[in-house]
């Protein structure tokens, strides 16, 4: 176990016991994932996709179910896709030369090698006696047959023993993969050479190979087999089309493909140009959407994660709220404001109930009071509830700052007796983290301001947009508007291609989450772009609210991306006019 209970570990590198101990069952939120059927699991980096896959692997399931290997509910095979494992630039050479065939061979051999690697580790680490496997001769003979049909020319020296040794099978697949890679490297700078090695496809090689594994008896006869493909955004466009083609095959009775992406999946087209669609071909889960639209679900998950870790690492039986206390002074003052709102409700009430007004105005009024007072006091973002809200539906965004807070406490020499993280440490670290979140992508952007709209890159425009919206949301928070806790925008007009590109980049970086909302005309739904709450501390927003949004003209937001100062000037003017009678959800800014 590590010293820091909140340290983020790569699921791939965690032992089955550790993964099992740390995992919080999230499948009630994502019920499609462990069920048979092809599934896409989308979510930004750090949202828990790989951990879900890790938990679904047989070694964890063996611990969880305390069953025999052939009694598992499903049998998962894990294939991680790293950045340039498969998506290599030299494949461009294949554009007019068996592009799909060779790419599919690369995918199939890569997948098969990883599957055998997993099985080899599973047997070794779980003391599974492979001499008990059934039908070894039958499996070996079928495996050799598949290799023969693939055109493998190196079969004479390939012998399989009486016992199954997955490491030998893995080496064989590694070797077939590397032969093809070697061919691609050889043609990089030369004319096309004839390809004379094996060619493996999904339907002729990988699918039957996975089915044949059942013959060995360690996978239950009716047990569904899942192929867990992690970070499929790292595949090339051609490879993505090939994977989609596999999804289009109705193989779910035998093998289901579970694909995780970081919201950058390149296409849903297959190699013949047709589309795969949900729910016809696959089901789809977006972790960010589920957790940003259901605050309670996410809150409960984080409570479970934190309390599990406090118990496991620190042997502490305390609540997450106790470990991450709020700033008491601040909460007292907010309570006083709440009482005032309650007692004035009958005269000055704006919402449906006094409680509703307290929720809407107490915290924003306190933030406004601090700003007006100019005493140097700042709003504190401490407290478990706020930290969960700030983490914006992404588990890593809670764990990483929590890990830094705990690290700070350790550096203060209190490692042996940490029973809580003081609110000052929480506040300091979450402010730092919020600021880093923006500067990770936009480090030192706009140190020089000599840009013209024409020279702005998409990321420059995104940086402008984030700042413009962050400042606008802050202005609304401290205004006289009736709804002040605004975090989202929707458009009343059609956004241009250029603006959509900026917004898409923002979504892929995790600065915005997408959702939908009934449009102003009531004739359908519009896309809602929700600013990540992780930016809340940076822009001094009230992060405890998920509710507020503004409809705004796309043309105005376009101006915000290229002329942020001009946007800011007009925006402040309009917001200063907002009062009790304005249309709650419409913000008109004339430029």
């Amino acid at each position, binding site marked *: 176990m590590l010293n820091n209970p909140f340290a983020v570990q790569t699921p791939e590198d965690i032992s089955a016991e550790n993964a099992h101990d740390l995992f919080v069952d999230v499948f009630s939120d994502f019920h499609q994932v462990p069920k048979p059927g092809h599934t896409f699991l989308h979510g930004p980096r750090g949202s828990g996709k790989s951990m879900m896959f890790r938990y679904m692997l047989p070694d964890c399931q063996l611990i969880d179910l305390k069953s025999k290997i052939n009694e598992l509910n499903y049998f998962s095979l894990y294939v991680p896709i790293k950045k340039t494992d498969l998506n290599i630039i030299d494949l461009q050479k294949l554009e007019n030369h068996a592009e799909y065939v060779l790419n599919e061979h690369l995918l199939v051999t890569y997948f098969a090698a990883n599957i055998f690697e997993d099985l080899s580790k599973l047997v070794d680490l779980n003391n599974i006696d492979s001499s008990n496997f059934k039908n070894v001769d039958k499996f070996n003979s079928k495996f050799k047959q598949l290799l023969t049909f693939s055109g493998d020319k190196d079969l004479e020296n390939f012998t399989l023993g009486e016992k199954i040794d997955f490491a030998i099978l893995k080496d064989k697949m590694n070797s077939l993969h590397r032969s093809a890679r070697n061919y691609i490297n050889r043609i990089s700078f030369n004319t096309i050479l004839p390809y004379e090695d094996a060619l493996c496809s999904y339907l002729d090689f990988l699918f039957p190979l996975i089915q044949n594994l059942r013959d060995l008896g360690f996978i239950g006869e009716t047990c569904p087999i899942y192929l867990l493909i992690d970070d499929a955004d790292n595949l090339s466009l051609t490879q993505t089309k090939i994977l989609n083609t596999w999804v289009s095959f109705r193989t779910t009775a035998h093998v289901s493909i579970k694909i995780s992406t970081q919201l950058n999946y390149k296409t849903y087209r297959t190699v013949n140009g047709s589309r795969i669609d949900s729910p016809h071909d696959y089901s789809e889960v977006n972790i960010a959407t589920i957790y940003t639209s259901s605050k309670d679900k996410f809150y409960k998950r984080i409570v479970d994660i934190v309390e599990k870790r406090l118990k496991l690492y620190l042997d502490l039986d305390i609540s997450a709220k106790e470990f991450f206390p709020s700033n008491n002074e601040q909460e007292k003052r907010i309570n006083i404001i709440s009482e005032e709102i309650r007692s004035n409700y009958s005269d000055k009430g704006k919402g449906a109930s006094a409680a509703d007004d307290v929720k809407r105005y107490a915290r924003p009024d306190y933030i406004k009071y601090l700003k007006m007072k100019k005493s140097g006091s700042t709003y504190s973002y401490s407290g478990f509830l706020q930290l969960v809200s700030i983490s914006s539906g992404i588990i890593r965004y809670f764990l990483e700052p929590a890990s830094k807070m705990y690290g700070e406490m350790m550096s203060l020499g209190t490692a042996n007796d940490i029973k809580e993280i003081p609110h000052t440490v929480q506040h300091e670290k979450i402010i730092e983290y919020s600021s880093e979140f923006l500067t990770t992508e936009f480090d030192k952007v706009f140190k020089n301001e000599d840009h013209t709209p024409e020279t702005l*890159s998409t990321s420059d425009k995104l940086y402008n947009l984030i700042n413009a919206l962050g400042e606008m949301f802050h202005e609304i928070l401290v205004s006289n508007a009736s709804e002040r806790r605004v975090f989202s925008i929707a458009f009343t007009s059609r956004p241009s291609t250029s603006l959509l590109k900026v917004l898409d980049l923002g979504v892929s970086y995790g600065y915005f989450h997408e959702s939908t909302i009934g449009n102003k005309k009531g004739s359908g739904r519009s896309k809602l772009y929700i600013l990540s709450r992780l930016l809340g501390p940076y822009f001094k927003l009230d992060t405890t609210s998920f509710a507020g949004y503004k409809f705004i003209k796309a043309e105005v937001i376009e101006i915000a991306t290229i002329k942020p100062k001009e946007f800011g000037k007009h925006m402040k003017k309009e917001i200063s006019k907002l009062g009790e009678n304005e249309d709650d959800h419409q913000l008109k800014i004339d430029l």
Partner: protein
Amino acid sequence: MIKKHLEYKLPEFDSFLSNSNVDLFICSTSFEERCLTIPQMLPDKIKNVRVLHFNKSYSLSNDNLDKMKNLIPRLSTITIEKNNPYLSFINLLTQLNSIPFENSCKRNVLIDISTVNREHIYLLIHIFLNEINGLKDKFNLSICYNSAKEYSYNSLTNSTKWLSKGVREIRSVLGFSGNFVPTKKLALILLTGFETQRAKKVILNFSPNKLILGHASKEDAIEESFQEYNFSIFKHINEFSNYPMEQFSFSCKSAQSTKDFLNARIKEIELNYNIVIAGLNNKISTLGIALCGLENPNVQICYPTVNQYNVDYYSLPSEDVFLFQF
């Protein structure tokens, strides 16, 4: 592979050029003024001059191309691509093969890599030093490099210095994609420079099982202040990284020394790891990485493209020229 490594001051290098027998000179345009330093010393006797120029380039680069054309009227342009290295390669190979030389004896080519972008340095090294391209036996290769006196030269403090912002894409380098074993773990060897964000992005994108993080060595730094700034960035990245990490220092003056270190480290870990190398320091260390890549075909070199460069104040040329003869 490198037979000679020489260092000159600009006037000495001018004399060297006048007395040399260069048959073909290759350089690159850039938004950096440095792209003109060596070309403007070129004697008339060097008949064949080719300049690499990006399709859809910055206006400053276009201006520098015009200046070069005025200085060297015999100069021809080879168009290269920012985001299509394969097309760049085809253009380079086609144009280099079509230069009419009087006889078939081995020619001397001198490449000024001062402002050639890293990806094209790798391509040029592959073209001239890998046998499969057919040019290795036709040319004796020399490479020269005019180092920078200062980077981000309008910034008064290190904290406001910047060379690039945003990372557009991280890709393997054409010809250096390596040959990975699908089931091995990944080691990333990263030679840090002045670009924090670019380095962080490379690490996050690869999520390596082992990170080998390098900084410029004190003894082989171009300038002491460069080394200090680089070391501060190295420390920052080191703190940011959550991956199992080891550190090393490399030479910014000797490509051979950088290559030798990388070769030795690769030998130690290649049995257990697929290896990716990313170079973010100067062009001499980049040259060392390219040479290492040639000798280690299983190793991958990667290149992170950026969203924007500090085109106005990127660098100022120094008085020093490094020459590497192969």
